[in-house]
């Protein structure tokens, strides 16, 4: 039945579909497996033992486990853009056409050049990064780092963008259960029957946990049949949700959990429209951790050799996958559970070469079994194994009496006992407690609402798991008031003995590994102890023990035990390191979910966006907004040409710009004026209805926070604008003022940012254009609509609008607001009506040029360090009222006369480009902190001045107009003369905007 290559496939048994043959490749070699296999089980079936090279010494490694804790069998899965490095072969469900490759080897797995590192192993000891590459430092960048980078790391990331989709989702439940072994199934049944909303997360592709490998009898039926029955009952409950392929990876505050669902990792390409993986945030009122326990290795010589495998994994491969890791198997155990593997092997027809049992006594049944099958039971430990990259050949045991014995075998199953999975229960900095009887850490309390049950709680027998699972599921539901019957507790009479004798390490002359993935040996831990790195946290950092992708699941306890022995402390005294999420590795792509590329963040579009896009506008991201930066027309060779044209068109005719991105807030209520007086430095309560005023807000520390124009539309209604960047923050600040600081004021706030499409129309022909848009009955004359006027007007065609006579450009200008639904129509109407005036749309660049020419401050000057006085706006500060920031703005340092204040700056050489960030120093001075007078904040090419100009913040700037100073730009290595001048380059008298 089995294929030619499947030399280690058993003739019968296993949860595989022998009618569904799948072909796959490993390192370019084609092989066959069956549906139901993992990549690891298929490799086992094909007799593959060597699957990778270790991280530091490039030692040959095989498969150690059968689960997500696998430290050795990491492969590159798939090819091209979908290539995924460091994927655990033990978790990859086999599919037809799967392509995988070993990693961390060159040029090939069986001949690896860097395995020479083993010969140099004396220099790769604990702390070698700190000791070896220290000196000379000049060698770091050119020599040490490239060397380490080539040698270190594991697989290669894909060099193309991942074509697959990932997403995130929320789920909510009453009782969340992690794991669907006997404990988890019993808990889910109990909670579900009681009426609770249950989510059952299972990392594997099917329910059952260890029952799939160990079998047994529950409620009088075979375990597999019981699992099927339990699953059917759970699926019949509408409030129970079963999530397979889903690992619970984190437990956060207040019942929030993270889980990773591998939706489509078991197919080569996810079906169209489906994600590859999904990260869940699960909000649960109660959590039952039924995550089981992990078997631990024993540290002996050559314990990392291919063919050495955890005993429970051997059992899994034989029973679940009908694939045997060895033809002639030996066992090294210190407990009864290991013997189950011998029984499984014998039942499958695998020859057992012998058992090395660390305990002085084994049971009569075990002796009888050995006698019946003719294998030796040796009392002692394995000193080392011999063999090579092809795998184990000989097992050399050190017997209790001091003698040595050798077993010939091509596989060694190892059981050092079991560690409950205490990761989830300890993630809130809880430290697990030590239980001597099982020589393992068990949960000691858990985050509120969470409880561990079954093996995860140190109860290893099937009977106890079922009982504890049932009772914790029932208790969780009962706590929440679900009172329906939880039904009967599933029972099993399998209350197997465990009787473990702790053995952590064997004093062998051969290299013995504690952390397989990071190549930490027993002698590394001894070195750390000698050098004083005895605290577990130091031990971890110094040796890198437990810092690999398995996060010490296979190594930490042995490492602690060795350190405890070396330092004469007990294991609980030695303690554990802190457990942190995630419990298993999660790809960054899964954490990003939908938020990548154009969906990196949500976007906001202005009312004129589609029109601007039609015209070929270039857009710039401003916060979440896409804003038109400039509107290139044919044959314009670069942005500066376009921007200059736009500025000239405005200054000589008329142009318009979408300013809908400004934050807009309705301030209502009888106390609205008083409220604004307290948040702005200037007074608004005396603003006449129909008028606008420029205002400045300070932070309470006296520094400028935001600015904008606020209009009074009615006695109890102001319309406030903020800068684009600060819109959200100002809203929050104003709500703070309203609710926390001044709750006695009767004022209401609403953001109306999206209600209005707002355009600035600027230039000497603005009024001409507006007269074609606005109803003829509206008086737009200087008398009828003076500078800083603000009122509702009717447009031709019957659309109501708001008109504000305000100017940011220094030109005669209005801002016009229409309800957003008319925004698109308004720009099109402006273009049609403005054709005869040469109307020109302009973008944020031209807007910036004109504000710099006019000396208006903006973001680069409102930079969180400047006062109103620094910006030349100190006179706006009212002395007749309290306002936020008033007191602190008067601090000595904020009113000192050598503060950097806004000044105009232009290069003396008119052909020279001025750059933002250049420092201003006195002419002839040596650049340095003591001669630094300030810096250039904003620059532009000014069509009006026909040269580059800028604004800057410079000490004594106002008294230095006309002075020639130096611009010192160490980043661009430039030094050039500049003239300090009045920041208002354009129309300093202001006649144009008032005309």
């Amino acid at each position, binding site marked *: 039945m089995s294929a030619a290559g499947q030399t280690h496939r058993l003739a019968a048994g296993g949860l595989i579909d022998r009618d569904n043959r799948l072909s796959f490749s490993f390192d370019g070699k084609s092989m066959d497996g069956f549906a139901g296999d993992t990549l690891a089980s298929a490799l086992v079936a094909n007799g593959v033992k060597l699957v990778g090279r270790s991280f530091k010494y490039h030692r040959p490694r095989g498969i150690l486990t059968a689960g997500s804790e696998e430290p050795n069998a990491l492969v590159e899965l798939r090819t091209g853009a979908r290539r995924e490095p460091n994927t655990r072969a033990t978790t990859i469900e086999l599919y037809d056409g799967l392509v995988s490759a070993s990693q961390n080897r060159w040029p090939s797995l069986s001949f690896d050049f860097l395995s020479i590192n083993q010969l140099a192993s004396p220099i790769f000891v604990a702390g070698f990064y700190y000791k070896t590459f220290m000196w000379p430092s000049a060698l770091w960048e050119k020599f040490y780092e490239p060397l380490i980078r080539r040698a270190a790391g594991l697989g290669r990331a894909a060099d193309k963008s991942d074509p697959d989709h990932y997403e995130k989702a929320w789920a909510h439940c009453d009782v969340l259960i992690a794991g669907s072994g006997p404990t988890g199934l019993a808990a889910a049944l109990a909670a579900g029957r009681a009426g609770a909303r249950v989510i059952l997360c299972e990392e594997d592709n099917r329910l059952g946990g260890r029952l799939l490998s160990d079998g047994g009898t529950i409620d009088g039926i075979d375990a597999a049949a019981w699992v099927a029955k339990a699953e059917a009952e759970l699926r019949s409950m509408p409030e129970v949700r079963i999530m397979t392929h889903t690992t619970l990876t984190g437990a956060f*505050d207040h019942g929030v959990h993270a889980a990773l669902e591998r939706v489509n990792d078991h197919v080569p390409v996810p079906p169209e429209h489906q994600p590859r993986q999904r990260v869940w945030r699960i909000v649960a009122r109660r959590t039952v951790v039924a995550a089981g326990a992990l078997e631990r290795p024993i540290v002996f010589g050559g314990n990392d050799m291919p063919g050495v495998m955890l005993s429970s994994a051997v059992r899994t491969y034989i029973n679940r996958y009908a694939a045997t890791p060895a033809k002639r198997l030996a066992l090294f155990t210190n407990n009864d559970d290991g013997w189950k593997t011998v029984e499984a092997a014998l039942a499958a027809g695998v020859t057992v070469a012998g058992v090395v049992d660390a305990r002085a006594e084994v049971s009569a049944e075990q002796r009888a079994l050995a006698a019946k099958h003719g294998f030796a039971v040796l009392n002692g430990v394995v000193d080392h194994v011999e063999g090579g990259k092809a795998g184990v050949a000989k097992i050399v045991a050190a017997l209790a009496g001091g003698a040595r014995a050798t077993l010939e075998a091509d596989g060694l199953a190892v059981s050092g006992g079991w560690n409950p999975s205490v990761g989830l229960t300890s993630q809130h900095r809880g430290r697990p407690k030590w239980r001597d009887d099982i020589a393992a850490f068990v949960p000691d309390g858990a985050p*509120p609402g969470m409880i561990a049950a079954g093996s995860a709680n140190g109860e290893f027998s099937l009977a106890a798991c079922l009982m504890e699972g049932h009772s914790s599921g029932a208790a969780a539901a009962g706590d929440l008031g679900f009172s329906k019957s939880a039904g009967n507790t599933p029972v099993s009479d399998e209350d197997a003995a465990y009787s473990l004798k702790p053995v952590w390490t064997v004093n062998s002359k051969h290299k013995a590994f504690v952390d397989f993935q990071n190549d930490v040996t027993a002698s590394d831990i001894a070195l750390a102890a000698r050098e004083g790195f005895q605290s577990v946290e130091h031990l971890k950092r110094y040796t890198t023990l437990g810092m690999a992708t398995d996060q010490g699941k296979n190594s930490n306890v042995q490492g602690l035990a060795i350190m405890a022995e070396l330092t004469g402390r007990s294991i609980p005294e030695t303690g554990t390191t802190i457990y942190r999420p995630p419990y298993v590795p999660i790809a960054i792509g899964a954490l990003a979910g939908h938020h990548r590329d154009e969906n990196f963040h949500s976007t906001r579009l202005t009312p004129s966006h589609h029109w601007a896009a039609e015209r070929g506008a270039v857009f710039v991201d401003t916060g979440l907004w896409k804003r038109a930066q400039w509107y290139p027309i044919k044959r314009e060779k670069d942005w500066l040409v376009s921007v200059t044209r736009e500025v000239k068109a405005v200054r000589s005719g008329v142009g318009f710009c979408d300013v809908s991105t400004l934050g807009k807030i309705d301030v209502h209520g009888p106390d609205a004026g008083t409220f604004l007086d307290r948040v702005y430095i200037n007074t608004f309560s005396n603003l006449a209805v129909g008028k606008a005023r420029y205002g400045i807000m300070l932070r309470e*520390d006296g520094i400028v926070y935001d600015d904008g124009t606020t209009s009074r539309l009615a006695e109890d209604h102001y319309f406030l604008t903020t800068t684009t960047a600060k819109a959200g923050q100002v809203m929050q600040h104003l709500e703070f003022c309203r*609710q926390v*600081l001044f709750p*006695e004021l009767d004022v209401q706030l609403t953001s109306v940012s999206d209600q209005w499409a707002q355009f600035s129309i600027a230039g000497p022909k603005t009024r001409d254009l507006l007269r074609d848009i606005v109803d003829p009955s509206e008086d737009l004359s200087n008398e009828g609509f003076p500078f800083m006027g603000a009122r509702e007007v009717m447009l031709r065609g019957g659309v109501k609008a708001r008109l504000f006579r305000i100017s940011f450009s220094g030109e005669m200008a209005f801002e016009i607001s229409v309800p957003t639904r008319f925004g698109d129509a308004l720009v099109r109407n402006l273009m049609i009506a403005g054709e005869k005036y040469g109307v020109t749309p302009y973008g944020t660049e031209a807007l910036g040029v004109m504000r710099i020419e006019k000396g208006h401050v903006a973001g680069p000057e409102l930079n969180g360090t400047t006062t109103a006085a620094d910006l030349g706006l100190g006179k706006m500060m009212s002395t007749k009222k309290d306002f936020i920031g008033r007191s602190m703005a008067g*601090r000595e340092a904020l009113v000192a006369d050598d503060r950097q204040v806004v000044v105009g700056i232009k290069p003396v050489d008119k052909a020279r480009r001025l750059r933002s960030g250049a420092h201003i120093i006195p002419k002839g001075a040596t650049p340095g902190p003591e001669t630094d007078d300030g810096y250039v904040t904003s620059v532009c090419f000014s069509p009006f001045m026909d040269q580059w100009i800028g604004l800057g913040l410079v000490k004594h700037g106002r008294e230095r107009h006309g002075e020639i100073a130096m611009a010192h730009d160490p980043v661009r290595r430039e030094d050039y003369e500049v003239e300090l001048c009045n920041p208002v380059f354009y129309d300093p008298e202001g006649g144009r905007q008032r005309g």
Partner: protein
Amino acid sequence: MRIACPFCGPRENGEFSYLGDAKPKRPAPDAGQDAFYDYVYLRDNVAGEMEELWYHGGGCRSWLKVRRNTVTHEIFSVEPVAGAGAQKVAS
């Protein structure tokens, strides 16, 4: 983390913004610079229970007083500030 907004119910922390200690009260306008200095800059750094201001900007836009253990993140109470909603508040 989840905060039970008294108006909206329990919500994930992404809907909230943290301000900090709720204890400092804005001094009277004539209290002088020292009082304002304390108000603006001086904060207790409590490891344990403290009352904090949080803003439910991603929900009902109410400012809330949250009594929370800064070490365990246990939340003991969540109340609206005086000016949340429309009740009249004496000056």
